């Protein structure tokens, strides 16, 4: 590769990094700016660290950690249930032939066609009947309804690519079907598991519509609803909103950094003659 092409590639990467990272940086500088500067349009480009104690005090006024805990519960619950059911369902769709299989695949796609807002009213009525209003589990179930088909489809596609001979070989080696799924298939589709986990996790992490509709108790709110509650009729404490948003973002970024290492391809190399 020539030096010019290397430099161009480096420049392109730099532009993309700035493009993606700038909103986070701006969130930080906004959080550390004084209210006076913000509303007067004099926000500094650099973070004003002297405002940090004031920011911490204002964040401390709201139950941010509790909201964060609720968000983590919803996100992790959605992820775990989506992955477990998605794995079993995806395996069934990938490996078994049954009547109506095409229709099931069609229904999986249909769930993605319907917007959340369209089913929020019928879901509300259903939650009343089932006693799931104001319940974190109800919110997890509602989110699973949307993220499970995506997870299932991703995992089914990944399992389709795992050679059947590997499973037959495991059967010859006296490994039962469940053991084969656990020990042979799942390690080979780890990148797709990670991708499905990211999608399900962020679907739960960013949950707002269902949470703001189904959860009236402030202590059950996730951070997204809590942040929205900052917006007042006469005043919106922008620094607090941005500070809380920053706290809200950090675990998600850490989760993504941890999981993205798994999203690599080529794990089945060497399984069968290629």
């Amino acid at each position: 590769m020539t030096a010019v092409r290397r430099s161009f590639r480096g420049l392109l990467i730099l532009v993309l990094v700035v493009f993606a990272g700038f909103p986070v940086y701006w969130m930080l500088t906004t959080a550390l700016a004084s209210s006076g500067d913000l509303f007067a349009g004099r926000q500094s480009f650099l973070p004003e660290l002297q405002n940090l104690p004031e920011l911490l005090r204002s964040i401390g006024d709201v139950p941010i950690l509790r909201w964060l805990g609720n968000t983590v519960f919803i996100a992790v619950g959605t992820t775990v249930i989506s992955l477990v059911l998605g794995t079993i369902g995806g395996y069934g769709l990938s490996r078994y032939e049954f009547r109506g299989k095409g229709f099931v695949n069609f229904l999986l796609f249909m769930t993605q066609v319907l917007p959340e807002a369209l089913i929020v009213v019928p879901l509300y009525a259903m939650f009343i009947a089932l006693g799931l209003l104001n319940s974190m589990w109800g919110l997890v179930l509602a989110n699973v309804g949307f993220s499970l088909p995506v997870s299932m489809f991703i995992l089914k596609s990944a399992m389709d690519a795992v050679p059947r001979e590997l499973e037959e070989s495991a059967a010859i080696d006296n490994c039962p079907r469940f053991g084969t799924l656990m020990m042979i298939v799942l390690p080979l589709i780890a990148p797709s598991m990670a991708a499905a986990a990211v999608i399900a996790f962020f679907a739960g992490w960013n949950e707002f519509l269902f949470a703001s509709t189904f959860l009236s108790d402030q202590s059950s709110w996730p951070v997204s609803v809590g942040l929205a509650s900052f917006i007042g009729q006469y005043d919106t404490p922008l620094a607090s909103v941005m500070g809380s948003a920053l706290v809200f973002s950090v675990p998600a970024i850490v989760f993504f950094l941890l999981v993205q290492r798994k999203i690599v391809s080529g794990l089945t190399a060497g399984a069968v003659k290629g």
Partner: protein
Amino acid sequence: MPSLTLSGVGKSYGDNMIIRSLDAYVEDGEFLVLLGPSGCGKSTLLRMIAGLADITSGELRFDDEVANDWSVSRRGVAFVFQSYALYPHMTVRGNISFPLVMDRFKKWHHLPFVNSIARRRLAASPEIRDKTDRIAAQLELGPLLNRRPAQLSGGQRQRVALARSLVRDPALYLLDEPLSNLDAKLRAQMRAEISELHHAVGKTFVYVTHDQVEAMTMATRIIVLDGGEVQQIGTPDEIYTTPANTFVARFVGSPPMNLIDVRRAGDALVTAGGTRWIHLGAVPDQQELVLGLRPEAMMVAPQGSPGLPAEVAVLERLGGETLVGCRVLDAAGERDTAMIHHDLCYVRVQGRAPVRIGDRLTLTYDPAATVWFDPVSRRRLV
């Protein structure tokens, strides 16, 4: 080892019949080769024996017990796949020891996270470790035990697949074209290694291949299949020297057996093109015949000698021998249509044959080495 009996075994997918009623018996310690062209049902048959495919009709017996509905694990067979089927996320050691670990696995060991710990602990147990090391040493895989399949060559992967099948010490080994992905040199080497292995372990091998060289060199008995039907069962010698029909005659042997349409005229034989010669051996008592001659049973003689007039069309000089491909000529010196499949008539000549392309000569043969077939049924007559 249990004896293996197939009685009227058939396999079909809907209306598509893969294997018609098939009968065979596999003796203890035998090296049985299922030989046939692609799509003849040989791999399907092997998968049915292993329990990887259902049997549509007939009976499969292990000893005297009907095993049609037995699970794969109950059959206790080893299976070497054409594609190796190694577990890519495990090391060579992990792959080889996997069957031993599974034999000791309890049901709850299969639970998520538990399986990983249990597998490691069992694989590290002295008994499994020693056995894995012994098999690896036997197949010269010792230095590769910590590598993953992606880091191995084709031949090494194939040896790992063999090691994994050997480690459990099963009574029956099923091998599905295990050498088809290797290059010619490695294939010859592995052929010898598998034969040695068979002698060393003394167990029953059922081996699928479409390569007649593999079948002839390794088998104690061969079943030739075509279109889902058994064409012939016999030792390699029987299959080669007395093929049951023209399919076997053509499929086994390289170059294949020369088949020539002839008509009896008293003591003489006449081709469609009018070439006539006296056959010095016995001839079956019927008018229309197919004369079968292996290339090594034929000789080249100067033009005008009694025999089949021919013209050299192809010369394959292989060093130790020469394959002379001849176009059979009729009485008028034009191409005769007597050769079935319109093939060339091949003669195997030891050393360097003193002929050139375009030379006209006469083909003679050893009358004792002729094989006669019926031109309608295509079956061998004597």
